[in-house]
């Protein structure tokens, strides 16, 4: 098997008995052994658990039981998804040593589809960041250039797939945390419609924005993973009451006649090469018979500001429970209040503290209306803008990230320029819509560029239809 084999091929081979899940796993573990020290995609490689799962898949095949559509596929999990008995850290000292007593719903569902979990991947602490430099356990480097970042916050999951440490992985996307690292690492990354994939067992950052999605080497794999993960979960009240998505049928569908939206007032500042790739993607779709239509999203430019009030506000509440009493880190002190303070001072990194303070302030009496309240209004305006745009267009294309992977350390002292990495991805989360990043050629220094396909609520089918076409026509040829 060659590097970057896709999940569908692996599952087919394992299901028909032509290859064993254990031998697939060995190949991936060998690649981890060879290169993980220079990438640092994982907080934990769950070697033994993976062997047990792979052996079970092989036993099922041998006994004539179908292990499922992800039979023997090595999958990495972002380390903010609960795994029973396996440490789940969110790349934070505050959760050090905590082993959840339960599995996240996505973990249960993928395991039920035959997946083999190879490990828990690194992230920006509590998913707060765009470079995976905010991890308490060290940076994840970009497999295309290890002097550069992998993006974030799901940098470990993106890098794991790009480096061939896993055939696929899961990330979470609150403001672009799947799509931006996917673009920077040259893999496919999907943020589905809010409520499509259960959040049960995903350690919350900003609950109204968080959504789990896959990283894969190609669009078909992403469709297969989403089909396995999605569908109503009674344990998540925000889960949409509908069956799992059905996406594979859209992949080979012609894009002729589709209306592709181009945002005429798109915020500027992107790399020229990134803008060039986006223009080429429009050209390619037009050449295939799609219509390019201009749409306006005037409130998009306020998205970043609104996001940096709403997400920290929710985070300030979600992270208040980490007090050293029941689990994770505890720094002993003279009395309970001092213990709380010492624990939180030692347990949280700077970016997390920054956002807790921002969010607490935004919700405070006397400031609520000016900050959080106003941000909610912007959120509504963005949804309204999208609603108008989707009357004219079936999907909208933007760059995923304005820039290619940047050098490690380049933005750590300038949070605002780091926040700007998410300018194209954030509005989607505010609206609850689906969006995905597809590799589309390269930019500066030969580094990967991603094009983002945006679609309205539950518009995953048409989104995958367009993404699959872009993948086929991407510069450098189809894989």
């Amino acid at each position: 098997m060659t590097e970057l084999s896709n999940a569908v091929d692996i599952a087919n081979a394992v299901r028909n008995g032509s290859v064993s899940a254990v031998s697939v796993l060995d190949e991936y573990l060998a690649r981890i052994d060879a290169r993980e020290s220079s990438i640092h995609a994982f907080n934990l490689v769950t070697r033994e658990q993976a062997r047990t799962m792979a052996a079970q898949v092989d036993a099922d095949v041998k006994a004539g039981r179908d292990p499922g559509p992800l039979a023997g596929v090595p999958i990495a999990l972002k380390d903010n998804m609960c795994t029973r008995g396996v440490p789940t850290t969110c790349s934070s000292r505050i959760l050090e040593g905590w082993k959840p007593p339960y599995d996240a719903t996505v973990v249960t569902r993928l395991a039920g589809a035959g997946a083999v979990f190879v490990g828990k991947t690194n992230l920006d602490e509590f998913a707060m960041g765009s470079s995976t430099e905010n991890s308490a356990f060290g940076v994840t480097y970009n497999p295309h250039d290890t002097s550069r970042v992998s993006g974030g916050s799901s940098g470990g999951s993106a890098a794991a797939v790009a480096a061939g440490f896993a055939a696929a992985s899961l990330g979470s996307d609150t403001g672009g945390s799947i799509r931006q690292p996917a673009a920077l690492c040259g893999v496919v990354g999907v943020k589905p419609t809010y409520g499509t994939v259960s959040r049960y067992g995903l350690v919350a950052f900003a609950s109204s924005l968080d959504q789990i999605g896959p990283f894969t080497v190609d669009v078909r794999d992403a469709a297969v993973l989403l089909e396995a993960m999605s569908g109503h979960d009674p344990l998540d009240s925000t889960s949409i009451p509908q069956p799992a998505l059905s996406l594979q049928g859209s992949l080979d569908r012609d894009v002729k006649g589709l209306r592709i939206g181009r945002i005429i007032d798109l915020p500027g500042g992107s790399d020229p090469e990134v803008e060039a790739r986006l223009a080429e993607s429009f050209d390619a779709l037009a050449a295939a018979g799609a219509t390019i239509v201009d749409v306006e999203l005037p409130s998009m430019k306020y998205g970043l500001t609104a996001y940096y009030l709403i997400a920290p506000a929710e985070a300030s509440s979600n992270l208040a429970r980490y007090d050293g009493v029941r689990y994770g880190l505890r720094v002993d002190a003279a009395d309970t209040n001092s213990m709380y303070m010492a624990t939180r001072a030692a347990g949280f990194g700077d970016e997390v503290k920054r956002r807790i303070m921002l969010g607490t302030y935004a919700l405070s009496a006397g400031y609520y209306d000016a900050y959080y309240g106003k941000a909610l209004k912007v959120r509504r305006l963005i949804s309204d803008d999208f609603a108008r745009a989707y009357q004219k267009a079936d999907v909208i294309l933007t760059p995923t990230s304005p820039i290619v992977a940047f050098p490690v350390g380049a933005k750590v002292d300038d949070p605002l320029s780091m926040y700007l990495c998410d300018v194209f991805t954030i509005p989607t989360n505010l609206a609850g819509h689906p969006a995905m990043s597809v590799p589309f050629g390269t930019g500066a220094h030969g580094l990967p560029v991603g094009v983002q396909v945006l679609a309205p609520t539950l518009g995953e089918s048409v989104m995958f239809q367009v993404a699959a076409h872009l993948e086929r026509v991407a510069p450098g040829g189809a894989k």
Partner: protein
Amino acid sequence: MIDGYELVVGLEVHVELATATKLFSASANRFGDDPNTHIDPVTLGLPGALPVLNRQAVEFAMRIGLALNCTVQACTFHRKNYFYPDMPKAYQISQYDVPLNVDGWLELPGGKRIGIERAHLEEDTGKSTHIGGTGGRIHGSDYSLIDFNRAGVPLVEIVGRPDIATPDEAKQYVTELRQILVAIGASDAKMEEGSMRCDANVSVRKPGAPLGTRCEIKNVNSVRSLGRAIEYEARRQIALIEGGEKVRQETRHWDETDGRTHTLRTKEDADDYRYFLEPDLVPLAPEAVWIDAVRAALPMLPRERRARLSSATGAPADGEAVMVVVERGQDDYVLAVASAGADASRALVHVKEAYAEQGAVPSVPAADLARMIVLETSGKLTSTQAKIVLAEIMANGGGDAEKIAAAKGFEAMDTSALEAMVDEVIAAQADAWAKYCAGEEKAMGALVGAIMKASKGKADGKAVTALLQSKRG
């Protein structure tokens, strides 16, 4: 009114709902079990756990709203953020600007209506026990134990309008509310066990003056304490004002042992709860058919039951007998005794007097009590004999009153024999008779006593009185 001041009191009552499971998880909602045996990831607020609303809790909350004449509406949940060791998420899921039930009222037995501003759903906290130090407070304790069995138990907070004007009205309000909650099966509403908890907002003012500064009184654990605490607090505030001082807005703790309220926290140390819409839940919009079904299934409420019993017996609806019998749930029984042919007012008196230890379904068949009352009202048993016969019936869980009376040798005197006896006594006690005829009612006691003695207790007191009155003319 106390010393020329009006009291203005509003009560906030928290009740634990009698659901099988917690508000947002499948753990059991049960009081009194070993600590931390009814817990799960949601109850403990473990990272990644999410709340799922309990439909039964919503239904119970709707029952409460409808029984209190509220409008049930589409509503939302908010997070109320604050730190406390027994609140594992560091926020309480509650309702804020759009609660489930709004704008109702509760009618006191005397007919006065107390407004209900809202009745909303929220989750309870865990329970802390502070070991060492003084007074069971967290400050100065050596260590604390936390029981999360109560965390996540569904609560309804019933916020009354400040329409209560006396400590006694406050007691009536809580007593009536408790009866309603029990009647509709929403809560066992036991103040002693904490399944019903009451905070009182108290202020005073001169009649016609604007509202005074209020203080919130916490830790009131019985209806009696509620009356005492309000009375104490009102007098404390009046003394401050009369002494030229101002009442500070604060939360005060009622101390049962010294009978006073003490400062718990002032307005300045009040928490900023940073309420915001709970993103882990969706809005709750009970459909009209559901609301209608809950309304239709509501049992008769205590107020209606008292009115029904009052009109059947002629006793006042807010009189002791009707109040007591309805509270015991024995009003259906009294009506059954009446429909078996007995005088309803006698049935009410006997049940009120003799059935204190019986439940809503007394052991004596209604027909047996009815037969006994018929004997009594037809004059075949004196009231004294009636009590003896009833005691025997109750001891046996029923019985034929006629046979018991016969076995005991009770035979009421017939009217002519009684009249003869009355005449004899009048003749023998001419002095008393003269006084009685002159309008000295006290003199009747001596005459009746003598007649009863002569009849060896077989004469019916009422019949004797009636005879004496008719003979006086």
